[in-house]
């Protein structure tokens, strides 16, 4: 492709959704990835599309739009990625946990999230194998799920059908600019010219920012997921303990986990995910697998006979304030970031694509994008570091 209107670096779910939104807006888009589609964190993600785990605020607004956008996208490109509105159930077994959960659910409800409170009977009716000692939970009918690798692949397929170009196997090594305006990029094999470059490299977004002589504090947060052998349909929703919500918002480095348990279209059960900050250390840590197994069994005792088949891990891209970075770089014009979605990149991808596209094309965005702006990290105090 000669002279693309925009170059997207990264063919994970965020890059794919950004490329699709830009293409749908009429831009000629070139996507570049050093590997195949979904070869980064997207290939290690679990596929939860959650509204239930977000506190009211900008991220929840983004998540609510994104959830609906997933279903619109499904229709638009013809599906093929196991999207399912299965609903999420958040439970708690401690007094403090229950009162926190009630408070959160009430706040979420006033922000327009659908919530249904359930007691033990209500829970047993819709999740018959849930441990009988669970007495309180909230059902979030809008929580959904997809298979993230297939999603990214199907979206890239649509991008290509609609005129976009996907170059894979090229490593971006430089973001070129002139007087602090982007002019294009160089890979280990070629150079490409474009006035707009979108950095959708997830956990590696800081490196791309650096190549452009800018700065972005995106770091890895490791997570393990357990995959079981195929089982009959034992679990109907995605079910997790309210502690999970506390983990998501936590900044602590040491291991945290709270099992999110759910069945998949292929019959396997996913149990995820741990969260810890150990850099890019990919070693299998059996202690984490055991902890996740214990938590899953405590929610669903029947799982103790189901076998662990695989465990995989990935590195969530996270920013210090746990919000994604979506917007134009404060130092280099024409460089846009769509990265740092931490443990919610699958869920938030379509709305991220919309938000970045409306800003680039000058249309009015569906929400105020300023809370996500990279500017928040690009004041002098950060750049000096």
């Amino acid at each position, binding site marked *: 492709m000669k002279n693309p209107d925009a170059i997207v670096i990264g063919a994970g779910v965020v890059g794919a959704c950004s490329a699709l939104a830009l293409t749908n807006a009429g831009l000629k888009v070139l996507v570049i990835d050093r590997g195949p589609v979904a*070869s980064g964190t997207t290939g290690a993600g679990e596929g939860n599309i959650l509204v239930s785990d977000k506190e009211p605020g900008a991220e929840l607004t983004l998540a609510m739009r994104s959830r609906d956008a997933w279903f619109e996208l499904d229709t638009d490109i013809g599906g093929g990625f196991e999207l399912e509105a299965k609903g999420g159930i958040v439970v708690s077994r401690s007094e403090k946990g229950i009162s926190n959960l009630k408070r959160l659910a009430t706040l979420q409800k006033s922000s327009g999230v659908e919530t249904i409170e359930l007691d033990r009977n209500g829970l047993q009716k819709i999740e018959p194998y849930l441990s009988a000692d669970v007495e309180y939970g909230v059902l979030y009918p809008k929580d959904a799920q997809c298979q993230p690798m297939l999603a990214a692949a199907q979206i890239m*397929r649509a991008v290509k059908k609609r005129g976009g170009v996907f170059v894979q*196997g090229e490593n971006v090594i430089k973001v070129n600019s002139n007087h602090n305006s982007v002019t294009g990029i160089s890979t280990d094999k070629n150079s490409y010219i474009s006035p707009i470059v979108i950095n959708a490299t997830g956990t590696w977004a800081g490196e791309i920012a650096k190549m452009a002589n800018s700065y972005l504090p995106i770091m890895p947060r490791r997570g393990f997921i*357990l995959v079981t*052998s195929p089982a009959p349909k034992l679990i109907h929703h995605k079910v997790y303990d309210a502690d999970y919500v506390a983990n998501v918002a936590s900044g602590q480095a040491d291991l945290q986990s709270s099992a999110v348990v759910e069945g998949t279209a292929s019959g396997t059960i996913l149990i995820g995910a741990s969260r810890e900050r150990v850099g890019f250390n990919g*070693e299998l840590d059996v202690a984490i*697998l055991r902890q996740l197994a214990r938590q899953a069994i405590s929610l669903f005792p029947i799982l103790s006979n189901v076998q*662990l088949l*695989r465990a995989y891990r990935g590195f969530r891209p996270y920013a210090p304030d746990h919000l994604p970075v979506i917007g134009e770089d404060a130092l280099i014009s024409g460089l846009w970031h769509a990265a740092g979605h931490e443990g919610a990149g699958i869920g938030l991808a379509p709305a991220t694509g919309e938000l970045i596209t409306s800003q680039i094309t000058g249309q009015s965005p569906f929400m105020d994008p300023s809370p996500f702006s990279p500017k928040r990290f690009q004041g002098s105090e950060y750049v000096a570091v």
Partner: protein
Amino acid sequence: MHNVVIVGAGPAGLSAAIAAAAAGAPVLLIDSNPRMGGQYWRMAADSLENQIDQHYDLETGLLLINAVKARKEIEVWSNAQIWSATHKDGVNTLRIIHQDNEKIVNTKNLIICTGAYDRTLPFPGWDTPGVMTPGAVQSLLKGHAVLAGKRIVVAGSGPFLLPVATGVLKAGGEIVELIEANKPIRWLKSFAAMLENLHKINEGYYYLKTISTGKVRPRFGYAVVRAYKADNDELDSVDIAKIDRNFNIRKIKNIKCDVAAIGWGFTADTSLAGSLGCKQIVAEDDGVVIWADDKQQTSVTGIFVAGEITGIGGSELSMAEGVIAGISAAKFVGCKVEIKKAHIKRRAKKQRFATALIRAYPIKSGWKSWLTGESIICRCEEVDLNDLKHAITELGATDSRTAKLFTRCGMGLCQGRICGRSVVDLVADNLEISPTDIDRIAAVNRPIITPIPLGVLAAGE
């Protein structure tokens, strides 16, 4: 505290255990089977008595097994399956399922002899009950005294087909066809290796004699290329094709049978050694094996390997390597012992024969032409060739890992042990590229070596 831990009680592991114990090292020998002997000397339970007829060289096996039992320095854990292993700061942690409980063994000195299993190639109908591996037919006989069926076709490639056919005849079964895809003439290329291993020719002669007494005439240059189901959805018949040198089909005829035992040599099970970080390489037959130096030590100090996981070479090479690995490991823990010249010479001789074998029985790329779009490739997840092609042409997979994640091909309970090797070849073929060593090695990466109940996992610490 055991000085040397050995995994696998086949020809390699037994030899290693005896060598290490003889040198003065206490040994813990771990094996997942209920009885020692590995694949070659698969033993039946006492109540069934050993199926002596089914063995060519049971004497050696019993000698080794009894020697292991007699040595008090050797402790044996049978029915003990390692499900996970990790290496950290020189210590190997083995996590073992033993009678529904988990045991943990930490050791600095490990000999891994986990052997191999039959290599299979997918073809239309290969998931029909009645189609099985030659190893299955043999283990049913050796281990359980059961004949797999009434009318048996033995096919594929490699010398292993001969003992399997022999075993069936000895047990009173009927061999309808014994067919080998390669021509015997290929052996002439390795004349020297044959001459120095004449007793192997004797073994072959013994099998061929039994086979001809059973009025079976082996065919060369043929292959089973399709299996058909009867009304009860079990095996009814197979198509046998005359094939050319590249395994492309020339002429087909249909043969009725209730068992088709088809194997294409062996695939090493490197999962355990791979989990511990031992360097894996691609052998001449494109199979992934563990690299070892002349002392049988892997790229990880203190971990030694022997037997089929260093390259497919048969029981004698396995034993020769096992002895050296046992000595090396004993020396590593401080025993005063040296590898002798004779050990090295024996291993070299067996290695030359093994190399000759691999060259005499190549698997040629034409097998892919036997498949149709609807042929199942991954038996566990029921992924067919069309699904794989879709992942490549429509979803943009450009390597076997991505194709696997898109289709679930190789992600079922066997963890790609059965289809993984073929999938790498099929994906590359559809992309019109050659598979890389990285592709092949990625396909055997199994950090969870065998599935483990979550309850057992949760109970561990």
